[in-house]
Structures are given as C-alpha cells and as structure tokens.
C-alpha cells in the first residue's frame, strides 16, 4: 500500500481537474483517479478527440478543451480508467486499474464524482428504446452518433432543451417534446428572475435555445402528466395526458430527463453526513465554505456538493484545492484568502442563476401508478412496495429484505430516490426522516480475481 499520497482526487470532470491542478500548482503531491479513458467528465466527455462540428455541441462544450489542456499540463499523477471501489474514514482507498487493485492512504481526499440523472419511474420506462437525455448526449459526444429514427423527448430541465437544440443542429427528427414541468413552476420562478440577471449569459443561452426549438415547429406539449411507454420487447408507443386530454404517439426512441442529482455513493459510504436540499429535491454531503465534509479531510466539489453546473463546479474545485494546500502547509492563510476572494466573487455570479432554475424546474413528487417498476434490477413494482409499507415496513433498508428492492447490480442507484419518496408520501413523513439505502463497498463492480491480484 502506498501511504504517502498527499491528495487523492476522484473524478476528472471540471471540479476534479481544477481542484487537482490548483493543489498541484502549490506543490501538493496529487494523484487523480477517474473511470474514463480521457479527462473531461460527463460534461466535456471526449472533448480532446471530438470530431463533431462545434455548431452541434455548442460553444460551452468547446470551452472544456481549455480546462482539459490546463489539467494535462499540471504536475500531477493522472490515472485514467481507474475505479475507486472503496474509501473509508481513515482516507484509505481501493483503486481498480485494469486487472488488479491497489490500496492507497491519502492525507486529503477530494471527491468530484459529479451528478447522475434523477430517476422518475413511469410505466414502461424499462423498455428498450427508452433512455435518458444524458444517454443521448453521451452517445453524441463519445461516439458522434444520433438516433437513426425519429425521437420523442420528455421531462423537465435545461438538459432536455439543450439536447433538443443539439439534435436540431445535427438534423435529428424530433417528433415531439413532452414537457412535464408544471405550469405554475414558471410563475413561481419569476420572483427569482431579478437576482438571475447577474448571470444573464445563462438566461440568454436558455432563451436562444427555446426560441430555436419553437421556430423549428416541433410539437411541444406542456404540463404533460400520466406518461406511459408501451411495447412488448421494445418501445413502440407513448401515452400521455395534456390539457385534460389523452394523447398517444408511435415512437421507438424516447429520451427522458428529470434533472440531475449528486452522485453520492462514495461520499455516503465513507461516512460523510448528507443533507436534504429542498430547493433541488436531492441529498448532498454537508460541506463548509471550502467544500470539506463532516469527515475531516474529505472534500466534496462540483455537482456532488450541490448541483451548480460546470463553471461553478470548476470554481468550487479551485477553493477546495486552495484549502488542501493551506491545510498541508503549502500555502499560508493570507495567500489562500487572497486567491479565494476573486474565486468566490466569480462563483457568486454563476450561482445567481440557481434559485431561478431550481424553482423553474423543481421536481414535484408523485406516486407512480401501481404497475410501475421502481427497482429495475429486481423488478419490484410500486404495488409490491406499497404492500410492505402498508404492513409496517419501517424504511428503505428494511424494504430490501422484504422485496429485494435496491439489491441488484446498480446497488440502488436507479431506485433509491423514488423508494424514499414513496415511503415519505405513504407515511406522510418528511424525506429526511425516512432514511436511505446504506451504501457499502465495493462501490464499483470488482471480480474476486481482480481483488486477489492486489499489489502490495
């Protein structure tokens, strides 16, 4: 085991790359581990080798190249294709690289594991042909591919509109957009608009996307409810309600999106305290103004800390990088604070858009119809869970024992939020009193052979 790493950073998205680079610049010995073959995270996926015309992916994506180049020039050890499969309170971590595992102990750890899409189950969401909007974007960025058939986009949130805009640029036929955002959200969000003017570039970008989509003439259904995907072995039709009427559309590719939530698996398993964020309707680790969690020495940055977007993520990474350099004696307090001041000013400007966006696309929890599969891996339906809750099941962890819900290969990543929500709704309890699935290592899949091959 290597005992002497000063800082281990997990994740090479904007927050992780920036945190690593800033700490390294001040002389900290940094190792960065990332699952992917190239740096950039999901947002700047494949940006170094991108062959698509920048008109398709947009200017914000292209900006990621500067961040990646700066990271590549940093004096740090970068380990691509390396999965961190455990992290404990003593800051010991297990890393899987190719066919073997290695253990490290670090003096500080910065978690930059980013976000995942929020799962909002509806009948038929497990059918082949239904995928997330993020999946559509990942295939676009990493494989330069678009759907070969007409698509329907459904859900709520900026990413859905961005994908619609990108697909329009690429020439994909979009048969309809089914927006599930409740109409009253837009009215409620208006009071946050004046504060959002400080981040007017976001508003302008959003307005341009919306205008382009409107001009394209794609049917855009608003306040859609009761969505249902139907098909035998794959999707062939969607049913939904809009304006009090039922509608249906034939389609073979449906991309859904309901916002993103922090990917907290590693943070949770390392014992970082979580807090419920009512505005963003998700859990994130508690953190101080530098990003340090309740576990001393473990920091959380970027979208893991709170959903903030790529620009703010990179800035939050800088703050954590500075604090680690300060704590390890590579930087004095005065130098730290001087540098942090301008970073915080920029961060505030980027964060000014959040109350407006959070309110506009606030998720309103609903209980899906009984036949809906909540846990995709173990095929546990809403009806099955309702039965155990009604017979006195105390919380999500006990529901595992009764139903196997959350015990499949995804380890509850896809169903945790909706299971908690179901408990909260049926028991009329606030979400932070319902409890959540425990997160246990191995956080990432690892074979016995890989484990046996550990390098001492």
């Amino acid at each position: 085991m290597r005992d002497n790493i000063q800082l281990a950073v997990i994740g090479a998205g904007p927050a992780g790359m920036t945190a690593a680079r800033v700490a390294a610049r001040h002389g900290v010995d940094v190792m960065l581990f990332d699952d992917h073959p190239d740096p950039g995270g999901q947002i700047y996926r494949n940006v170094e080798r991108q062959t698509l015309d920048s008109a398709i992916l947009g200017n914000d994506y292209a900006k990621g190249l500067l961040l990646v180049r700066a990271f590549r020039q940093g004096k740090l050890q970068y380990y691509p294709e390396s999965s961190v499969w455990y992290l404990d309170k003593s800051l010991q971590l297990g890393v899987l690289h190719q066919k073997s595992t290695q253990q490290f102990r670090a003096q500080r750890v910065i978690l930059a594991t980013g976000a995942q899409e929020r799962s909002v189950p509806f009948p038929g969401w497990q059918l082949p042909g239904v995928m997330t909007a993020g999946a559509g974007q990942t295939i676009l960025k990493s494989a330069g591919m678009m759907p070969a058939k007409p698509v329907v986009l459904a859900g709520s949130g900026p990413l859905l509109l961005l994908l619609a805009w990108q697909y329009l640029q690429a020439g994909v036929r979009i048969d309809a957009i089914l927006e599930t955002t409740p109409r009253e959200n837009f009215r409620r969000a208006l009071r946050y608009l004046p504060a959002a003017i400080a981040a007017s570039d976001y508003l302008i970008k959003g307005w341009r996307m919306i205008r382009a989509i409107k001009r394209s003439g794609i049917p855009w259904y608003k306040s859609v409810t009761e969505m249902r995907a139907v098909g035998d072995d794959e999707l062939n039709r969607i049913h939904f309600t809009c304006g009090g009427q039922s509608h249906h559309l034939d389609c073979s590719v449906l991309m859904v999106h309901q916002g993103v939530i922090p990917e907290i698996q590693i943070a949770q398993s390392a014992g970082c305290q979580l807090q419920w964020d009512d505005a963003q309707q998700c859990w994130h680790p508690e953190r101080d103004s530098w990003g340090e969690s309740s576990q001393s020495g473990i920091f959380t940055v970027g979208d893991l800390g709170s959903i903030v977007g790529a620009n703010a993520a990179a800035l939050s990474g800088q703050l954590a990088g500075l604090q680690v350099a300060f704590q390890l004696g590579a930087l004095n307090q005065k130098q730290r604070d001087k540098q942090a001041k301008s970073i915080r000013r920029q961060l505030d400007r980027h964060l000014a858009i959040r109350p407006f966006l959070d309110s506009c696309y606030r998720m309103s929890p609903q209980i899906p119809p009984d036949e809906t599969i909540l846990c995709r891996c173990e095929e546990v339906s809403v009806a099955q869970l309702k039965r155990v809750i009604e017979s006195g099941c105390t919380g999500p962890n006990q529901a595992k024992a009764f139903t196997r819900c959350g015990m499949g290969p995804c380890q509850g990543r896809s169903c945790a939020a909706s299971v908690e929500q179901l408990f909260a709704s049926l028991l009329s309890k606030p979400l932070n009193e319902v409890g959540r699935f425990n997160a246990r290592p191995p956080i990432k899949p690892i074979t016995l052979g890989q484990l046996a091959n550990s390098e001492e």
Partner: protein
Amino acid sequence: MFQSIDRQKSLVEVRLDGELISLAAGIPLAAALLEQEITLFRLSPVSGSARAPYCMIGNCYECMIEIDGIRQRSCRVTVREGMDLRRCLEGG
C-alpha cells in the same frame, strides 16, 4: 437505432454470441452495438423481459454483457478488435 453523424469510423471484428460482427472501433461498446441495430442487451433475471442501455454513464447496469469472460457495463468499455461478447439471454 443510432447512426454516425459526420463520418464512417474504422471497423473491427468482434464475436457476439459466437458470430463474427463488425463494430466501430474506439467508441463505447454499447453505442457501437446500438449502431448495428442490436437493441436487446440482456434479459432480466426476474421476468425475462428485454433490456437495453438506459443511462450510458455506468449507473443503471442495464447494458451489462459478458466481455471476454467478465460481465461488464458495455457503456464503459471501448470497442477493441477480437472482443468476445456474450449476452445473457436466459431470463427467469
């Protein structure tokens, strides 16, 4: 289900359930299979229902197939010449 936007990628041969097929090299395996109209990745072990890639970022595990003897998420593996791919098509 998907098609390349700007140009044809170089192809390599792999085996899928014992049969030779050509896939685009250097991209995520799940995307390359979708390009070849392969939309069934596995059958659910519970009911035997058909499954295919859902999230493409390694979270949902729906795209798992056996790659060179180890069950892996095909969205997280890059296509290489000579891969031996087997789908788990025995549900229930």
